[in-house]
């Protein structure tokens, strides 16, 4: 055969192979849709042109052999992690560990002894099947910075299987070094993508002749960076790994809190864990740590600070971890979780919502004060019994918070958004910033205040008058976030000065949760108020810490929301055009056209939007000088839309109360979400925005998501990181979110001699056996 012939054949074979690998099997593979024109074809290259997350981890191919922490985890010396070796695929006979080494030095004997000492069970993460291998040695660390290779070899069905993980380990933080940060506030704007920052500036600060009248406090910060938010197993992170990864350095799966995946899915508490920067600073340097949030306290973002659980929804368990309460008669057992108790550092300051996860179901205050009609713990009352016994002062409203001593740990749980006429936020979360301002008489919604029936505050609380005579009274008793943060700092300051080991060191995580939660239900105006509140807190904190040369503030987001600014509108035009568009009627879909007389102009609401040349500057005002616009619907208002959404209708006016965007129905006693149908109770005569989120389980289709998504999703966009104060320069750059952990460690002081120069192989080893 001639060379040319060989070349032609080879080319044909390569082409065939390539088409074989990249295309898909099946007779109907050419079209992205099946013959019905609706169901997406399994073979659609949009979905299947690339490898999906079958093996999202560095694994050996035939056994799924893997090591935790995942390769590339951003660690620093001394930071605790669990070292786990496991297989994912059952063998024919029990696999055996043959070799485990670090930088070529065997640690197998230490590992084996440690596993024997821990014993089979949750401490070791022993799989139920003997045909799987899995063993976790707890709470180890690398003792020196540098490069490490961890190699494991297992004998599986007579064949040696090998896996290597690599880590670059940074120097441990040392706050005693000159210039190190010693007071650290980490602000997390949940879902706060760049468009929300921009919107907060336009709405909160205004502009003249094209220039912002003033920059946001977070924009004024001298160091700016950008971080990538993808989680371990998804380009769209949820808030669990979105917060967990930046403060521990380990990419984590959606739903996971400070743990890696493992082959014992039956136990979410035995997964290999990782220590957070917060936990490290408390354990090693005696710092005090705290969280302040407007979400329920055990929600993913605050929980990620020091809780460890594969399932973020394990709320009762997480509440116990937060105050360090382990008891075999409760959700969080003592037996089998000694290593967890050693790792997880209890919080000294906790403020947020969600009393239902903390109080006994038999505690009458759960209904009377917190307005929960059902729920509550069956095992223990953490709020009434455990927290006070552990030395926390427990506060429930603004007055109690103000009068609580600063030299005592504090647990503050406040009333949630319990209005029965409001949907989409729920009683676990504190009322939104705008709603709290309305309750305080500091804002109106198109002129309506707390006494107007549309607002739903001038009525008695449904569960009793424990929190106040009216809903408005109850909301007024919920502190604004600035007040909560102020108190939190005072407590952390006092506690850390009392403790010689702390030497004045503390870390506080402040979450603005509702910027995300309101984004989900497409209450964009409320999201903007949340970001304004966050910025006001940042400004107030910057002022308070201005003379402290060892203070550091970092502001970032766990992910973005798919919102963007599309223009402005005259509020009066929106009001006038409402009803001229479509009409959504309950249970009937599609809707009917409102002005069918003019075929070219069926929806006047569209004409109300000013964009390009017509996007003049909005007219928000802050006449009372409290730092917030007095009304979210001034004469000219900003218009935001979401790129990902369920079907809903909007006239772009602010709802008097938060309302979920899409419809639902009751089917044989069960609530069924209907993301393809707008909520008929919410702006039913607005512009119909058809959804692009999954609606129903499409059996037989290629729809990855099998259930309904009745909210706007998170976005996969990168997010901004802003910083100011001691070590702020470390946060400039463009990096994975896991790198934030190392940057925090650097800001908290690194001995020059220990700085990692290049990627040198470390002379250190694994310690903590």
């Amino acid at each position, binding site marked *: 055969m001639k060379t040319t012939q060989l070349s032609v054949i080879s080319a044909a074979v390569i082409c065939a192979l390539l088409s074989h*690998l990249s295309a*898909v*099997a099946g007779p109907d593979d050419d079209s992205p849709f099946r013959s019905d024109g609706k169901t997406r074809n399994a073979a659609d290259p949009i979905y299947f042109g690339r490898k999906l997350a079958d093996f999202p981890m560095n694994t050996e191919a035939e056994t799924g052999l893997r090591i935790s922490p995942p390769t590339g985890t951003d660690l620093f010396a001394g930071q605790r992690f669990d070292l786990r070796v496991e297989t*994912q695929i059952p063998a024919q006979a029990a696999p055996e560990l043959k070799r485990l080494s670090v930088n070529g030095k065997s640690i197998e004997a230490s590992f084996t002894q440690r596993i024997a000492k821990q014993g089979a069970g949750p401490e070791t993460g022993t799989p139920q099947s003997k045909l799987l291998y899995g063993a976790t040695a707890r709470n180890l660390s690398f003792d020196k910075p540098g490069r490490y290779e961890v190699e494991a070899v297992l004998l599986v069905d007579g064949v040696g299987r090998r896996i290597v993980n690599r880590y670059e380990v940074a120097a441990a933080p040392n706050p005693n070094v000159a210039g190190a940060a010693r007071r650290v506030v980490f602000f997390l704007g949940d879902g706060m993508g760049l468009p929300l920052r921009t919107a907060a500036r336009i709405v909160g600060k205004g502009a003249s002749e094209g220039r912002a009248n003033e920059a946001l406090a977070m924009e004024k910060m001298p160091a700016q960076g950008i971080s990538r938010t993808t989680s371990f197993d998804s380009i769209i992170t949820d808030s669990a790994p979105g917060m967990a990864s930046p403060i521990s350095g380990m990419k984590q799966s959606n739903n996971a809190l400070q743990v890696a*995946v493992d082959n014992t899915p039956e136990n979410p508490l035995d997964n290999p864990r990782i220590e957070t920067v917060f936990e490290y600073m408390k354990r090693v340097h005696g710092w005090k740590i705290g969280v302040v949030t407007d979400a329920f306290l055990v929600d993913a973002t605050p929980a990620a600070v020091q809780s460890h659980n594969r399932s973020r929804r394990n709320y009762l368990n997480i509440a116990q971890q937060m105050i360090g309460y382990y008891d075999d008669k409760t959700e969080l057992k003592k037996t089998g979780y000694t290593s967890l108790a050693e790792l997880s550092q209890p919080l000294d300051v906790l403020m947020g919502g969600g009393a239902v996860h903390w109080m006994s179901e038999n505690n009458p205050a759960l209904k009377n004060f917190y307005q929960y009609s059902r729920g509550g713990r069956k095992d223990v009352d953490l709020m009434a019994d455990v927290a006070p016994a552990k030395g926390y002062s427990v506060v429930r409203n603004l007055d109690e918070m103000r009068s609580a001593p600063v030299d005592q740990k504090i647990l503050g749980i406040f009333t949630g958004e319990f209005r029965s006429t409001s949907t989409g936020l*729920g009683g676990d979360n504190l009322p939104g910033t705008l709603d709290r301002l309305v309750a305080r008489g500091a804002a109106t919604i198109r002129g309506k205040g707390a006494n107007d029936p549309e607002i739903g505050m001038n009525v008695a609380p449904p569960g009793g008058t424990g929190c106040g005579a009216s809903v408005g009274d109850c909301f007024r008793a919920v502190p604004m976030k600035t007040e909560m943060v102020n108190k939190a700092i005072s407590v952390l300051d006092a506690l850390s000065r009392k403790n010689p080991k702390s030497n004045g060191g503390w870390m506080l995580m402040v979450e603005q949760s509702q910027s995300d939660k309101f984004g989900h239900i497409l209450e964009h105006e409320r999201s903007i108020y949340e970001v304004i509140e966050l910025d006001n807190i940042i400004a107030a904190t910057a002022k308070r810490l201005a003379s402290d040369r060892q203070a550091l503030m970092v502001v970032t987001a766990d992910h973005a929301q798919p919102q963007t600014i599309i223009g402005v509108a005259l509020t009066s035009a929106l009001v006038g055009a409402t009803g001229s568009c479509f009409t959504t009627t309950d249970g009937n879909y599609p809707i009917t056209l409102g002005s069918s007389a003019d075929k070219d102009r069926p929806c006047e609401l569209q004409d109300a939007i000013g964009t390009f040349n017509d996007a003049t500057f909005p007219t928000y005002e802050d006449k009372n000088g409290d730092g917030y616009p007095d009304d979210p619907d001034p004469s000219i208002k900003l218009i935001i839309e979401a790129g990902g959404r369920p079907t809903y209708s909007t006239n772009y006016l602010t709802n008097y109360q938060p309302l979920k965007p899409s419809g639902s129905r009751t089917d044989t006693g069960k609530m069924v979400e209907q993301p393809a149908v707008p909520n008929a109770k919410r702006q039913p005569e607005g512009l119909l925005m058809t959804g692009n989120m999954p609606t129903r*389980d*499409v059996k037989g289709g290629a729809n990855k998501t*099998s259930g309904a998504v009745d*909210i706007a999703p998170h976005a996969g966009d990168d997010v901004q990181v802003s910083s100011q104060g001691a070590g702020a320069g470390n946060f400039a750059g463009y990096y994975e979110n896991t790198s934030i952990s190392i940057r925090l460690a650097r800001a908290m002081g690194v001995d020059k001699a220990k700085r990692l120069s290049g990627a040198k192989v470390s002379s250190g080893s694994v310690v903590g056996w």
Partner: protein
Amino acid sequence: MFALQPPKRKIVFASALVWLLQVHPAFAVELVARVVDAVEAKVFPTAVVQVRGGGITQRQAADSFGFVRLAGLPAGAYLLDVKLPDGREFVARTVLLSNRKTQFLDLDYARIVPPHDDDY
């Protein structure tokens, strides 16, 4: 005597090679999947998994640890219909690559079904 002209020979050769890669046991991929719910901390023995794609349909019940093994699958894209013991169903998807003899897939109900209202 049956003889092919050179261009046809090339086509036959290439087609044969593609066929070989697709269906010959030596090139087939084994899919090992485990039916779990990582959020609810459950594995699902007796869950039924049906794999579909490339004209192939295989069905298997999970063992007592939630595993199914589906052997002899040509590389390519597949849908996996999963029926849990309690009757819930979901659809997952995967791509089998020809450069691996075995591939593992967590059929995690929590990953495939959107999160609870609170879990954002």
